[in-house]
């Protein structure tokens, strides 16, 4: 059975705990599907990190305040619907440890689902940048401002590529078909 996408994403970002990470590493090393998915998550992560920080045009202060308010609201709502305390009993530690993180995840998930992310203004803070073409064994990517277009090389470990000012080419033998596949991204 394959691990969930969320766990694969956490693994790709190095966010899993030691044991979970070891278990996942064992699975990924022998599962081509999951290995490819981890590589894709890493690629996206690297791309995001290569951008100029967080998306422009988002005021994070109010969003953080809204998140805190939603969590407090959830906790307060939980208290409202709870039966009135008749006997003062200490809450056992394990219940709190289970319920609070779940509640937190539900509230955060609800908030993210309901928040429509604002469209990115076309990098107005950075101003227009030229086209940038990047060639690596994983992909040839053409990037301008907040947009990018990449041809990927997912089915081979041995990728060769060549570049010129007019574009880049990558070449690999498709492990499934045995055919040579040549990707070309033009800057013209």
């Amino acid at each position, binding site marked *: 059975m394959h691990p969930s996408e969320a766990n694969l994403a956490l693994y790709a970002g190095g966010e*899993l705990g030691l044991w979970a990470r070891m278990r996942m590493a064992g699975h990924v090393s022998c599962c081509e599907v999951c290995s490819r998915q981890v590589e894709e998550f890493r690629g996206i992560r690297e791309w995001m990190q290569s951008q100029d920080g967080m998306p422009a045009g988002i005021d994070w202060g109010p969003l953080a305040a809204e998140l805190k308010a939603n969590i407090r609201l959830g906790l307060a709502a939980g208290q409202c619907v709870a039966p009135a305390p008749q006997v003062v009993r200490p809450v056992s530690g394990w219940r709190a440890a289970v319920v609070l993180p779940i509640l937190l995840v539900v509230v955060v998930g609800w908030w993210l689902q309901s928040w429509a992310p604002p469209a990115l203004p076309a990098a107005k803070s950075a101003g227009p940048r*030229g086209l940038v073409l990047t060639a690596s064994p994983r992909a040839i*990517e053409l990037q301008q401002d907040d947009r990018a*277009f990449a041809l990927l090389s997912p089915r081979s470990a041995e990728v060769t590529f060549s570049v010129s000012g007019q574009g880049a080419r990558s070449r690999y033998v498709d492990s499934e078909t045995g055919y040579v596949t040549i990707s070309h991204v*033009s800057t013209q």
Partner: protein
Amino acid sequence: MLVVGGVLAAGAQPAPVQPASSFKINFPADSPVAVVNADWGESRTTTLGGALVLELHSALSLRNSSQARIRGVTLLVLAQEVTPGGKASVSVPSLDIRAGETFPVRIDLRLLRPVGAGGGPLVEIGLDGVLFDNLSFYGPNRLNSRRSMTVWELEARRDRRHFKSILEAQGPEGLRKEMLASLARQTERTNLDVQVTRRGRATAVAAAEREHPVQFAFLRLAEAPLEPLSGLAQVSGNEARAPRIEVLNRSDRPIRYFEIGWIIKDRQGGQFLAGSLPASDPSLKLGPGQKSQVVEEATLKFSRRMGQPLAIEALSGFVSQVEFADGHLWIPSRAALADPLLERVLAPSPEEQRLTGLYRRRGLVALVNELKKF
């Protein structure tokens, strides 16, 4: 950790792609290849903050609906709405597809754009060209796939001749040694990651790495119709900017296109194929005995894998292909490519790559049978 899981579960929501609204396949009515099936199985979209990431993993099944054997196909991939001028292609050379046979072409791409931007199909997939056994060509040729596919086919014929001559002269064991030598070269060869910017510098540099001109040295290939005379590029650390090379047509025919391959040497003595410098003037007509200069207003920034530093020390160049005004093409011979430096840094031709892959996967008998087909 749970919070991060919640964020990923809710924020990065992979969803299957609706092919009809995202992609459009558009082949001409008289196309010699027809789409039999299009599988978009693993394609999906993910929202990350304000960005929409769309991954397309498609397998197109194409049928040769002409009467001639197909040697190569190039599909045009247009994503104009995502990146201005976003033009790309996926080619499959070294084919041997008879009339009525089907073959797969895979396209794997990723698009990233702001959420809510634009409408209509994001990617249009068309046909840029088909190359047949007799080197005739069909297609709009918007990305010059005719020249590229013809060069690959000429290289394929050259390399098959080379391997067949070894098989005849030294038998299967000789061919095995040649395959192992090629595989060893492919393994030892180092590829650099490259970033190309069309204007300005790729990065700001410290004063210690001030830009300075570096002259090209040239490998003279005896039978090349073009002779590189001089050249230089502005170098700073791991960046080379605005390479320019002067060439002389020493053949008796006018030339309309050429490419100069260039090799960089770093301060640790490593040598790497940096890329190519193509003639950029579409109206070029370089007569016999005439000189021309090719200039590229771009900056190329090189880096090794795993972030190891690299500093360019020297540049060298060689003529890698020439197209005459009458459409004939020149490529280096196997003898010319046996130069120790070229042998070390050049990637094998697509056909050599395919044949060594076949040897590795299916063994010597399968390789010998494959060579006998041609």
